[in-house]
């Protein structure tokens, strides 16, 4: 467990003297920086190029999503959650819809559940592709970005055909789905899977055994399983540290328990392991999608939901495994049409706390690699 005193703030006004009277350097990385993945500001305290400590300053993208939630009806708030982790909008929507469904004590019909799983896993692929492209770009490999965007496009096309939007999809409704799948949905998803499988190999060919990639990622940003748990880090980062924990298996939601897949884990908890874990996760997602498409049942797509959603008084916490980690919704209902309180537990926000622990004693270039490997989305960190 990280030493709590090490979490104290950096004293930024008085740079210390280090070896031979050299000044410590205090540098702002961000908010306008090409590699902070948005408007994240990291204040680095450097000795030469070595990081002595860092502090994150966030909130540049704060929009008060939770406050908005208190002033919108349950259905009206649904599109807002897409804007948090905007590269995994479908996952956000799934978490929110399921939380409200839980509060209403209803369950989406099987067909809707299947379609939800397909779209959510496709969304996990897009999220991981975006991560891979930008992460590689941060480390200096510019080509994978274009490859992943080329393939991500195919998924976005499916989203667009299904719900008319590509990024902030608003794909699900409370109680199920608004839209039936378009004709040829299954065929297109299957075609995509056939197209995508060799592409994962292609990404791996570019990077997995690349000497420079290995040197830049092995042993970088190490974090142990204990530290991960203490810091609340979830998702691929936790799994790369060797903890076999995935909410899809640990506390299955939607109908994930019907699908056969594995939880890839790493050993060292370094940047390379996180890379390997995410690559393996992509393959597992492909497996899940394939099973879901093959077993897509017929039937209604919407549960019996009252026109005006008025959940009984009470509160519920529901969390799902978003591409970045545990995404939780804590909703308090006062029996009215608007939630009394919506709390979002964003994975990126909590994961970002680990940045300091992961970067101390490493070089400036590694900070970039670690920010990339944490896979944060500032829309979700700041909400």
């Amino acid at each position, binding site marked *: 467990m990280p030493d709590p005193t090490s979490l104290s703030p950096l004293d930024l006004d008085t740079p210390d003297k280090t070896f031979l009277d050299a000044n410590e350097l205090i540098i*702002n990385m961000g908010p306008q920086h090409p590699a902070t993945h948005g408007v994240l500001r990291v204040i680095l305290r450097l000795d030469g190029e070595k990081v002595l400590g860092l502090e994150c300053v966030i909130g540049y993208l704060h929009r008060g999503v939770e406050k908005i939630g208190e002033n919108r009806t349950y259905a009206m708030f649904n599109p807002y959650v897409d804007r948090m982790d905007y590269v995994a909008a479908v996952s956000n929507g799934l978490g929110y819809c399921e939380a409200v469904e839980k509060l209403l004590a209803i369950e989406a019909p099987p067909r809707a559940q299947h379609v939800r799983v397909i779209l959510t896993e496709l969304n996990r692929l897009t999220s991981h592709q975006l991560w891979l492209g930008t992460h590689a770009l941060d480390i*200096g490999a*510019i080509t994978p970005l274009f*490859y992943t965007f080329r393939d991500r496009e195919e998924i976005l096309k499916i989203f667009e055909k299904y719900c008319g939007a590509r990024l902030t999809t608003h794909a699900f409704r409370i109680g199920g789905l608004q839209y039936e799948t378009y004709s040829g949905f299954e065929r297109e998803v299957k075609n995509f899977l056939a197209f995508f499988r060799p592409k994962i190999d292609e990404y791996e060919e570019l990077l997995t055994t*690349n000497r420079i990639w290995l040197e*830049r990622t092995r042993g970088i940003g190490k974090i142990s399983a204990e530290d991960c748990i203490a810091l609340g880090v979830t998702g691929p980062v936790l799994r790369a540290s060797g903890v076999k924990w995935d909410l899809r298996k640990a506390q299955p939601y939607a109908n994930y328990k019907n699908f056969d897949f594995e939880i890839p884990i790493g050993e060292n908890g370094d940047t390379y392991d996180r890379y390997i874990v995410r690559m393996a996760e992509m393959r597992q997602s492909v497996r899940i999608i394939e099973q879901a498409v093959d077993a897509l049942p017929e039937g209604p797509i919407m549960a019996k939901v009252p026109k005006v959603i008025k959940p009984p008084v009470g509160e519920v916490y529901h969390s799902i495994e978003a591409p970045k980690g545990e995404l939780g919704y804590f909703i308090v209902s006062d029996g009215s049409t608007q939630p009394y309180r919506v709390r979002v537990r964003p994975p990126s926000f909590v994961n970002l706390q680990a940045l300091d622990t992961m970067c101390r004693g490493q070089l400036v*270039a590694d900070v970039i690699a670690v920010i990339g490997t944490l896979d944060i989305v500032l829309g979700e960190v700041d909400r």
Partner: protein
Amino acid sequence: MHDLIQYVQSYLDPNVKVTPGAAGNMFWAFVYIMLVFLGLSVAVIAMNWLERKILAHMQVRLGPMRVGPHGLLQPIADALKLLLKEDLIPAGADSFVFWFAPFIVVLAAFCVFVVVPFGPQHAITDMNIGILFMLGVSSLSVLGVVMAGWASNSHYPLIGALRSSAQMVSYEIAMGLAVISAILMTSLNATGTGTLSMIGIVEAQKAQGEWFIFKFFPLGLIAFFIFAVAMVAETNRAPFDLAEAESELTAGFHTEYSGFRWSLFFLGEYTAMIAVSSIAVTLWLGGWLRPFPNLLNSPTWDTLFSYVPGATFLFLAAICFYNVARMPKHPYFRIQTMGLGAFGAALALIGLILFIPVVSVRVQDIFWFTAKVAGFQYLYIWYRGTFPRYRFDQLMHLGWKVLLPLGLGVLILTAGVGLLQIKS
């Protein structure tokens, strides 16, 4: 005046070998200086376009397509944009140093070409310390980089400048050791003395009948490899582009530069790439010599090889015409199609001119030299499309702990093998 005419005449006569830069040959020096300026400008513009196009095609995209046919005029549009852009000197900057730094970078990169031999008679000048001059001048550019970073009075440029100074300086040594083993090879000829003159080095390869990259296989190859790695590091290009690593230092040492002053750094970088490639070509790849100088040295082969330059240009022209045929037949594309056609026609004309024997005898040396340098430029682009970026300590590790011992070892082994050859 009479002398001048005589020099021109003597130069045009293929049987008279006038060493360029010899006393009184200032006229030709001047002509070549102008030609080098022109050639480099064209080369940098072409590099700019080619880098974008080649990288784009490696990355499954098209690259510039709008300005001119296939974006051919894009570099010119960019140059104009940079010329018309506001040029700021930050408030805290040391304005003279800030102003002067890009000049040093450009000067250092250009000056290398004073001694580059494009052919036995195509050079601005030939100095007896040519290679030393080249190494010295090309490493001057680090001064400009440090000055730029320091003068900006900003954190990122400062780190970029310090990084690049340490980096360029570290690879200088490995580079020097590799060069020494090539120099050592030049001394293994009949006269018994080596040379530092660039023309002399190529002549030595011609005399010994093999390019130095193949000499004492694999020693020459390893020396060349060391040089090839060091030269990428020297020019701050991927995967060693730490000085301007855009994901870490935003733009490194030239973060604070804008407008035309920034474009001077750009010019310097591309010129330096061509410059160090020229050194590599001269030292190991036989400079202006055509391929297989020893194996296929019958007059028939000579004639055949003299057709290659013209054929290459005709081939390029054919590609242009093929693309003209593929252009959409829509009035919107008419100007583009015509432009591409004109470009192809120009290339074809050059190709046809190159088939005239008098011209081809004169020019094929330049062609071979340029072709080899162009190969290196392609490698540079390829590296950029393929490799992630090294981290600073790994870069230092590679330079000091891998390339330096390797260079020393190769040098000693080359000397040993050379000694055995002398004895036998």
